[in-house]
């Protein structure tokens, strides 16, 4: 048995032991996301336009993460709409930033790994860079949208006649509570992966100016910073959607009663 299969089995068993049916669904969502991600690469390799692949794969990954992560439709539908809007805004920002920064493809530090490869593959790496950056932010957006939406559903349940302005205020308060830990998740998630790169920079005594203009470093920083921006935008947008869907949600509460 290969190590990956064994670790996957351990994770599956633990998820089912701790989470029961919900644990199994979570494991399944991870598998599905992996499948869609790999499929996205294959599609781009077959010259399907990267922007189209980004939008469809992005929507699917958001749907899988949100709808398989939680059962309550009041929370999930709001979170899904909100994260779709954030993905749209972020896509525009990222397209702009990637064209400005030109960090597509590989940097000089990759040369050794690329030896013997043909890099003229006829697919625009700039467009692929947009895809990569968007996909890396989606998990964080989905998670933040779900946290804010779940909190606001509870608020609406307790105070059905709350005003839209108050929903916004509560949304921001919930956002304030999650922002510290969410930033931590992203910071460590990304910086853990940069360890070797940073040791390279420090070991070869790159100057501050060199690092700030280094292709790979700037590419990674764009991922971290756009993830932060995505999470920040998610908070008010989720609250706003919740305000729009207030009537539907309050009605569904009274039906349940």
């Amino acid at each position, binding site marked *: 048995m290969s190590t990956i299969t064994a670790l996957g089995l351990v994770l599956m068993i633990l998820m089912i032991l701790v989470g029961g049916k919900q644990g199994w669904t979570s494991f399944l969502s991870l598998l599905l996301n992996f499948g869609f991600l790999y499929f996205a690469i294959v599609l781009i390799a077959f010259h399907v336009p990267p922007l189209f692949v980004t939008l469809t794969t992005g929507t699917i990954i958001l749907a899988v993460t949100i709808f398989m992560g939680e059962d309550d439709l009041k929370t999930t539908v709001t979170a899904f709409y909100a994260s779709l809007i954030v993905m749209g805004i972020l896509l525009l920002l990222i397209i702009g930033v990637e064209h400005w920064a030109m960090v597509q*493809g590989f940097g000089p530090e990759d040369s050794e790994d690329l030896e013997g*490869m043909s890099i003229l593959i006829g697919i625009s*790496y700039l467009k692929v860079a947009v895809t990569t950056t968007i996909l890396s932010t989606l998990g964080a957006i989905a998670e933040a949208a779900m946290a804010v939406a779940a909190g606001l559903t509870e608020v609406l349940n307790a105070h059905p006649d709350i005003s839209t302005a108050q929903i916004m205020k509560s949304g921001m308060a919930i956002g304030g509570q999650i922002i510290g830990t969410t930033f931590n998740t992203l910071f460590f998630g990304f910086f*853990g992966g940069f360890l070797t790169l940073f*040791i390279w920079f420090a070991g070869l005594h790159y100057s501050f100016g060199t690092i700030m203009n280094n292709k790979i470093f700037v590419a990674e920083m764009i991922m971290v910073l756009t993830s932060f921006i995505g999470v920040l935008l998610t908070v008010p947008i989720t609250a706003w959607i919740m305000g729009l869907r207030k009537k539907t949600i309050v009605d569904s509460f009274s039906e349940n009663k």
Partner: protein
Amino acid sequence: MQKLKGSAGFARQFLILLVIGLGALLFTFHNEAFYQRPLAKVEQVHNEKAVKQTDEFKNVDWQTKQHLRIKMLNGKYRGQVLTVTNTYSYSGAMDQRYRVGNEIFLTRVHEKNGELHAAIAGYKRDTVIVFLVWLVILLLLLMMRRQGSLALLSVIVNTILFMLAIELDLKMQSSHVLLIFGVLALIFTVISLVMILGFTRRMLATLGATVFGTIAAMLISLLVFNLTQERGIYYESMQYVTQVPRPLFLAETLLGSLGAVMDESSDIVATIFELKQLDPAATKRQLFLAGRSVGQSIMGPLVNVLFLIFMADTFTSSLLYLKNGNSWGYTFSMNMCLGTVQSLISGIGIVLAIPIASALAALLLGKKAKA
């Protein structure tokens, strides 16, 4: 959003942040004097006709040669104009198209027969980072004030610690990678949690859950590594490795999962403490089950957050492997296997933290069930 109270103060803060941001951006547009490396600005571009390129895998690409008139911005040749050549391809993996107004770094600047010659070393990108950092700070401070500033402070402190640890690792000549970064992970956790929660019992419970959850996940994974003899793990596919790869990989995994495990533990512990306040008579069992149910609903999204972060990075090189005639399986092994292992180990940590956090908080607070 905060217009009701202190709208004047709000407007002032907004203006201050705006001015600082614009100032920082303007600075990066004109900071050529601060760079030791020669910088130049593109003033004129002349493109030759695109040439079709076909490789042995039938990939078709187009290459274009550019002649750029550039003006030196710093150094002793400041103000002088010279011509350099650049070749860019449609795919642009290692090259890029330059346009009028772009600023570029040069190398090998030398004078020959009264004329300046140089080669292009790279594109100036610092403005982009400054812009994005400013955007993050602006949104963070305007939207979340106190919590926003704390989150920002925690990121800054963690970055500084991270750099110190890397320096230390290089000083020790990478002999104790796991020890250094393990201790660093512990310090990270304590500092982040104290900043978010203060020095409280809640913080101690969260800290305990994070530490035990992470250690348990690492131990289980090492056991699995041992039993399967690390079959299918290709450390040689790790990027930018300058030291022994295996301990570095474990350190990366440890750090990578830390934030998510902390995130989840603090959610669970917070819920249990809140429940205890609402219902002081709650038993240990009730508290434990409440914590577990919170954990169940957030573990899926959290594992996916890390999975997407770890895997997105491998996208570009996987694509290159596929277009170089490699099989899907080989492409996976050489690019994605380490990311997958990292995601799985982090997932194990995230799942294990649920019962540990619930049990710790419940033991700390719960009353014994009266029989």
